[in-house]
Each structure stands twice: as structure tokens, then as C-alpha cells.
């Protein structure tokens, strides 16, 4: 399980039936953002049964048991955490690296 931040959502029509009806979120691990200028790592796509939104910090569980054709799921939305020494980029309001600042629509 890891701490991540929701950075997007994916849609797919042509897919394994196990993915039917599942909301799929694109999630970046918090610790991947701690080193500005570092090469980006591929984000994880996780099934989201609990309704997390873009920008929210979430708990992601990984590792399927082979019963389904996916192996990552959002299992919690983080209210708060206390990790002494965690970099500033872990803060929920940290500036986003690699994204357009003020990129949202009016």
C-alpha cells in the first residue's frame, strides 16, 4: 500500500470485462514528487470504488490475488498524515511539478 495523489482519470471502452463499470484513476506516488527535476516515473492506474477526486491524496493497495484482471485499488482518502521529515511536496497544497500552474478553466 502506498500514499499517492490523484492526478487524473482514464476511460477505456475496449477492455477486459473485469474493468466494466470501474472508475479508473491515474495516481502518482507522493514520494515520486520529492525531487524536483527528477525524471518522472510512470503513474499507477487504480480502480476507485470510493469516489476520490483529482488532487486528493489517497491510499492505494497493490497486488491482486488473481481473481480479477487488475491489481491496484484506491482504498482510502487521506484526511491527514504526520510523517516527520517528509518533504514539502507531500503537502496537499504543494505546487504541482510537471503540470501547468493555474491550468484549470475559469
Amino acid at each position: 500500500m502506498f500514499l499517492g495523489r490523484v492526478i487524473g482519470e482514464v476511460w477505456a471502452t475496449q477492455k477486459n470485462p473485469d474493468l466494466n463499470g470501474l472508475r479508473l484513476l491515474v495516481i502518482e506516488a507522493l514520494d515520486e514528487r520529492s525531487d524536483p527535476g527528477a525524471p518522472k516515473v510512470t503513474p499507477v492506474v487504480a480502480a476507485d470504488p470510493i469516489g476520490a477526486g483529482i488532487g486528493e491524496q489517497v491510499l492505494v493497495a497493490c497486488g491482486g490475488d488473481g481473481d480479477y484482471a487488475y491489481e491496484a485499488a484506491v482504498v482510502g482518502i487521506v484526511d491527514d498524515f504526520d510523517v516527520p521529515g517528509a518533504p514539502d511536496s507531500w503537502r496537499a497544497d504543494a505546487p504541482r511539478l510537471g503540470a501547468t500552474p493555474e491550468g484549470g478553466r475559469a
Partner: protein
Amino acid sequence: MHICTVIGNVWATQKEATLGGLRLLVVRPFTTDGDGSAETMVAVDTVSAGVGERVLVVHGRAARHAIGKGHDIGFQTAIVGVIDSMELEGGRIVGQTAENDRSTGGAN
């Protein structure tokens, strides 16, 4: 599950028996700063993906489940979906192929 771009095909005649009849594709993991991972992987295609398309790739037991040949198969990476589109923060729209990428974000 990861996002990857299909970059090619692989064929092998002489192979482990459980791999018979499987379509193998070479994929490159997607990164938020482009499609630029240096790493590539070989994945079993279960959804008729094509070269250039962005796909969902699963690993481990989930991949074996998707391949549907039981847990004795000597492979644990599979393509389970072809991405129609993806919306990333900042209004960035990532399409099925790189040609369909666009941004709805603010003026540059």
C-alpha cells in the same frame, strides 16, 4: 496497473509451450512528462491493441487471470484495455494515441 504506449510486435517461434497462441507486444511506460520512459516491456495482448495506442497494462496474478490460461503460464504482464482518453490535472487531455493529445488549460 500502468499506462503504456504500444511501440511494436514481437514474434518467437521457439518458446515455452504455455506461450503458444499469445500475441506479444512491446510497450513503453507512459510518464507524465511525455511518453519518455527509457524502459520497455513485453506484454501479452488480450484486447487487440495496435501499435501507437495507449493501453492499460497489469502485472502479476492479475495478468495471468487476464490471459486466461491458468496460473502455470510463464508470463505476468498483460494488456487489459485500450485507453480512449485520459484527463490529467491542469486540463491536459491524453488521447488514445499521441496525435490526439491536447490541452484545455490556460493560455501559454
